[in-house]
């Protein structure tokens, strides 16, 4: 009965090689989020979708893009990963005013 699923759990990529992380949900929530979390730091919001409306945080690098083809799926594309992009990437969902439900995360390693 997984609610927010992230694939893969671990991703290794090379410096500069595009990578896509995926997230799916069975909760039918209208809001989906992508966070970046580095070791011992707070999760940092990259962007979120309210239904199909995309909202980018002001300090999210252009290197990060996202797609939400339907309610259930959301993708994070990193166009040219740098060493500083190595982190845990967390997907979350929520309704308009409620707690957020997080997936297990994808640990990205950049070689």
């Amino acid at each position, binding site marked *: 009965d997984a609610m*927010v699923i992230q694939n893969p759990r671990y991703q290794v990529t090379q410096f500069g090689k595009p990578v896509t992380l995926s997230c799916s949900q069975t909760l039918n929530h*209208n*809001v989906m989020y992508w966070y970046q979390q580095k070791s*011992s*730091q*707070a*999760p*940092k*919001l990259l962007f*979120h*979708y*309210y239904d199909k*409306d995309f*909202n980018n945080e002001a300090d999210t690098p252009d290197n990060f893009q996202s797609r939400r083809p339907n309610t259930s799926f959301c993708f994070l594309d990193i166009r040219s990963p740098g060493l500083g992009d190595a982190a*845990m990437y*967390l997907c*979350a969902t*929520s*309704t*308009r*005013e*409620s*707690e*957020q*439900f*997080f*997936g*297990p*995360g994808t*640990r990205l390693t950049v070689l």
Partner: protein
Amino acid sequence: SQKIEQNSEALNIQEGKTATLTCNYTNYSPAYLQWYRQDPGRGPVFLLLIRENEKEKRKERLKVTFDTTLKQSLFHITASQPADSATYLCALDHNNNAGNMLTFGGGTRLMVKP
């Protein structure tokens, strides 16, 4: 600038004692505050939500207080158990028409020793 501060040093307590974690914030006027638990290598898990007009909220062994004058929330775990060992994150909302937005503090790591 806006800040959310949680004690970055680990909190070590003995099993059975009450753990108290602090979340202080500046330059926010949140409508509500949330607490999450995060285990190593996992996503955060929601624990409690407290609204600005609520002073205290309880759930089983957990208690959260919210003082909007002091700009502080306290998170208590009574009768702590080794299984409570984790990092606890507080998060403040900045709700807007674009959805339910949270900003997280850096978390406090709790270690409960048997």
